[in-house]
């Protein structure tokens, strides 16, 4: 008789759809940290959200933008994790098995993120200019022909339906990937890897389409005159870059607190470092491609996007983004030694987390503060608040199951992996 893992009760389902299997974990893969693992980020999250609530009461326009940036930041981590897991299954990757539980725990963030999207939906009028009805009325003095022509796509019901669709797809695939992998820890059913691959294949295609459109809907439509067909890839590039930093940092944190000793090795971190470096460059490649084509085409609707980000003080922010998100990590991470020097790698992971948030800030905030560059306290508060809650749920999920897919047929290959 094969063992199965029961579904968790509906209250916990949002955080973890499966009953805890921590009791059946191999001692080497046991989560041995106290509740502080998730209480601490939760405390930071609550403080951040309380400060944000003050922002909502005093300056709701600012609050909605700050919240959107922080929420998109968390969403991008979940999406990066989603693509990482899917690709590992499809390529039958061996090296990554020991770290795979970390992104697997992250992909169940979608239901929580869906709940946390409520303030964005409430603030759509503040965030998305195209929701204003007066722009669409030819008789109105503020009639905007360009936005009116985009109504078949950019309208509130369709926008909400699309968001719902993305989240249903991500949640459905994530549920399969997460639940099957957790079940595999205790169930000797040999067909699980094959099933995981099947859902990964569908998940890769569906997830890619949803992610590209989500990037356009959530961020690009903030400036409804502007369009860039590469924006979906830009959004993906940042997501896939940041998941490497999150995995490396989580692994190092767990090891620092005495877990997974000798399981995740410097060779695994070096590979994460390679991906972090590679996708930092990929991000720059995509960001530059977008910039260069707009520079060449010189169409007013498109060039304005960059003009806003080069004038009124935003030029400094653009320069910081270029240096901090590309040049500095490129120079620091290019050497093999840097990726194997764990304190340096950890520093660069934190650095990239900050720059990744700054990237979204750079996309969204100039829409609000066209005429004077400004970073608000609420930007930081909403970011830390949402990231704290997100991390708390993630750590809680990690604590309920073995820290490694302990019956994965390729686990042995991952444990003995070397990077010569």
């Amino acid at each position: 008789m094969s063992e199965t893992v029961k579904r968790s009760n509906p209250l916990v389902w949002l955080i973890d759809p499966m009953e805890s299997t921590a009791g059946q974990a191999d001692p080497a893969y046991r989560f041995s940290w106290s509740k502080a693992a998730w209480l601490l980020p939760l405390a930071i999250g609550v403080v951040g959200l309380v400060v944000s609530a003050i922002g909502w009461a005093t300056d709701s326009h600012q609050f909605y933008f700050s919240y959107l940036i922080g929420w998109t930041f968390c969403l991008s981590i979940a999406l990066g994790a989603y693509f990482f897991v899917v690709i590992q299954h499809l390529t039958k990757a061996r090296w990554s098995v020991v770290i795979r539980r970390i992104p697997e725990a992250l992909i169940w963030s979608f239901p929580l993120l869906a709940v946390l999207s409520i303030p964005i939906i409430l603030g759509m009028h503040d965030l998305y200019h195209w929701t204003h009805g007066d722009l669409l009325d030819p008789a109105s003095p503020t009639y905007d022909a360009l936005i009116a022509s985009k109504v078949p796509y950019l309208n509130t019901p369709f926008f909400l339906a699309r968001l719902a669709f993305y989240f249903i797809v991500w949640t459905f695939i994530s549920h399969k990937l997460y639940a099957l992998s957790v079940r595999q820890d205790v169930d000797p059913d040999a067909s699980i890897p094959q099933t995981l691959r099947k859902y990964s294949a569908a998940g890769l295609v569906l997830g890619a389409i949803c992610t590209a459109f989500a990037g356009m809907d959530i961020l690009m439509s903030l400036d409804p005159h502007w369009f860039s067909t590469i924006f979906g890839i830009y959004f993906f590039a940042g997501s896939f870059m940041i998941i490497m930093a999150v995995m490396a940092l989580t692994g190092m944190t767990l090891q620092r607190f005495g877990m997974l000793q000798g399981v995740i090795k410097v060779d695994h971190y070096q590979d994460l470092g390679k991906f972090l470096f590679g996708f930092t460059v990929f991000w720059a490649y995509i960001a530059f491609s977008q910039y260069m084509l707009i520079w060449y085409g010189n169409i007013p609707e498109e060039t304005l996007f960059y003009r806003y980000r080069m004038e009124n003080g935003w030029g400094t922010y653009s320069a910081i983004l270029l240096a901090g998100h590309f040049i500095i990590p490129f120079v620091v991470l290019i050497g093999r030694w840097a990726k194997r020097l764990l304190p340096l790698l950890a520093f660069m992971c934190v650095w990239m987390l900050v720059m990744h948030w700054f990237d979204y800030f750079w996309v969204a905030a100039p829409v609000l503060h066209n005429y004077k560059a400004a970073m608000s306290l609420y930007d930081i508060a909403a970011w830390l608040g949402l990231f704290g809650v997100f991390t708390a749920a993630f750590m809680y999920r990690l604590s309920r199951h073995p820290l490694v897919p302990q019956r994965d047929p390729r686990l042995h290959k991952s444990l003995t992996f070397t990077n010569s």
Partner: protein
Amino acid sequence: MLNSLARDVKASMSIYDAGDDQVYGLLAEFANPGELLHAAEAVHEAGFRHFDTHSPFPIHGMDKAMGLGNSIVGWITLVGGITGLSLATLMQWWMGAVDYPISISGKPFFAVEPSIPIMFELTVLLASLATAGGMFALNGLPRPYNPLFYSKNFLRVTDDAFFLHIAASDEKFDQSATASMLQELGASNVETIHDHGEEDKD
């Protein structure tokens, strides 16, 4: 002095000179990759430097066992990359702003924005060509003539046999002592290879 430098460079590409007696070195066969790895370790530990291993497939950890350091090919890549970057910048500026300036929709004759793809591509092109070329040079390839080919047994190296070769040019080389050391390490078929410098007659 130049001669000894050339010898060292060639030795780093595992091209070794035969001694006056035409003895090129010893070729020892090992039963499996594990034994070859341990033998390589022992031979390196015994102080030999002019030796090489041959197997039908790459063996993980062999570079470490043989005491090979990190390859310098990365530096050749860097030089190639910087050359490509400089050439591309120069080319873009010279063609656009000096040799044949044409105003296209009011764009500057030379600007960084549209030049970056060319700079990027040439950097990658010359860096990768330098890497491939550097790799071949450092490995001493292509190498149509190798005295080891005189050994009939060595033909199996691309199929199912694992060999370790110690060159006569090594300072520690002593035909009989080295041969018995190899035998102690578990080698079968320790063969002396002569470099006739001529075509195989059969």
